[in-house]
């Protein structure tokens, strides 16, 4: 993968981690259903899939 791809992945990862903290504390603090659970699990799952795709292209 080109270095621009690495930078994009790294920047997106930072955004994902910040979202992991900020969205629950901004919008989902008083969640009365499974929204907060779904948010954290979906975000993690999405990044697991993305990261696995990236690492398979990246590491030779």
């Amino acid at each position, binding site marked *: 993968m080109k270095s621009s791809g690495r930078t994009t992945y790294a920047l997106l990862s930072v955004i994902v981690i910040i979202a992991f903290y900020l969205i629950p504390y901004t919008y989902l603090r008083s969640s009365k259903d499974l929204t907060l659970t779904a948010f954290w699990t979906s975000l993690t799952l999405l990044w697991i899939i993305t990261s*696995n795709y990236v690492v398979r292209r990246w*590491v030779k």
Partner: protein
Amino acid sequence: MINVFIAVLTAYFLLGTAIAYLSRRRGVKSSSDYFVAGYRLGGFLSAMTYAATTYSAFMMVGLVGLTYATGVGALGFELIYLLATLVLLVTIAPKAWVMAKERGWVSPSEMLSDLYSSRALGYLVAATYLVALLPYISAQLSGIAVVFEGVGLSYGLGVAVGTALLILWVALAGMWSVATTDAYQGLWMIFSAAALVTWLTFSFIPLKGVNLNDLTAALSNAGFLGLTSFWSFNTFLAYTLPWVFFAVTNPQVVVRVFIPKDGRAYKNMVSLFSIYGFIYTVVVVYVGLVSRGLTLLNLFENVANRDLVTPKLLLNMDATLASIIYVSIIAAATSTANSIVLAVASSFVRDIYEKAFSGKHSLKVANALVLTLSVAAAGIALLRTGFIVDLSVLTSVILLPLAPITILAWLNPNISRSKEARAAAIASVALGVAIALSAATYLGPRATFLSSWGGLPISLWVLITSTSITLIGFTLGKLRSVGKPS
């Protein structure tokens, strides 16, 4: 119950020992073979040893209890670890994996010593590992002993059995026996967790005359599906910050980046570990939430000591299944403890013994160190000193100063060898560890973990201090290299 537990434990012990014994055929001739399996592990073993080392007895006992007591915030706390570790494994760790093979790194302190061309840093980091991790090993042995007490056996017997397992499964073939038994234990852990969820969902909950919708409604009404008062932003930050950097601060985890034999093994390690971590975390949090839901509906007793939620739940289960799950807790503790013992021993063998002596007796010294560390941890566990257990909570905070010096050196291995970066790394570790230990002395370890200074958690202060010092060192080092005539 005792007889069934002893039978399951014996089966676990015999099978694990047979696996560890068979792993000797891989051949252990040098300290590199002993501590990093000669960089020859395949993807499956690399992934399973990564997972089993990372996920300790904390999961089935501590995380179930934390979820039960504080709600779904515990899910975020645990998943952020997985997320951050994954990002580190994809972005900077592949570089460390390549460098480890090229430069022959065996221990993480040796890695830092080499990256900064500083023996002093290697000694300092090895000493930090000892201070931070000995209580953590003791806490794992203590966890095994508590399981023994839970089934009606003695605490001392639990410590003795845990220590024997620890020594035997490390001494038989070093990383080979640890990795193969970790794979075995990792499978035991995940299948036990799956069995617990199946039992809860299809047997225990229907037996109580309710369904998952009733539990969700009860949890919702009590606020457990949102962020409870426990999870203030500061508390969430204090809990998660050391977790985010766990993969680059804890030597037993760092060393696992060195061991995959090739690119394919590395990629498979990342994939399998991430899938394992996700499933295990979700399953464990589910158990905690279901238990709380049942308590809210007055169908399960209110457990005041949150570490007892799993044991109380297991009392309702068939003795054989309960024993399998109890043994999975022992497996989680053993797989974490033996990896730590191996990692700490590697620091002393590589950074101190082999640099001072010929290295001719490295394997004997390694085994002697494994024995000494294990017995010392057992002695501490037997004292049942609350402070030691508390101190183990602080382990990740004490190790936090290693995060910036590791990450920056992996990214800039040329600048890290400058004298400015070297001095900064030593100052960074010394000051960061001093802040953590001073706070633990004045406030107590648990309070240190949760206290704030100026509105920020102490762990964040440790990280800010260490990162600032390290960054200054790297900046000065870079400026000097730019100013040099070519």
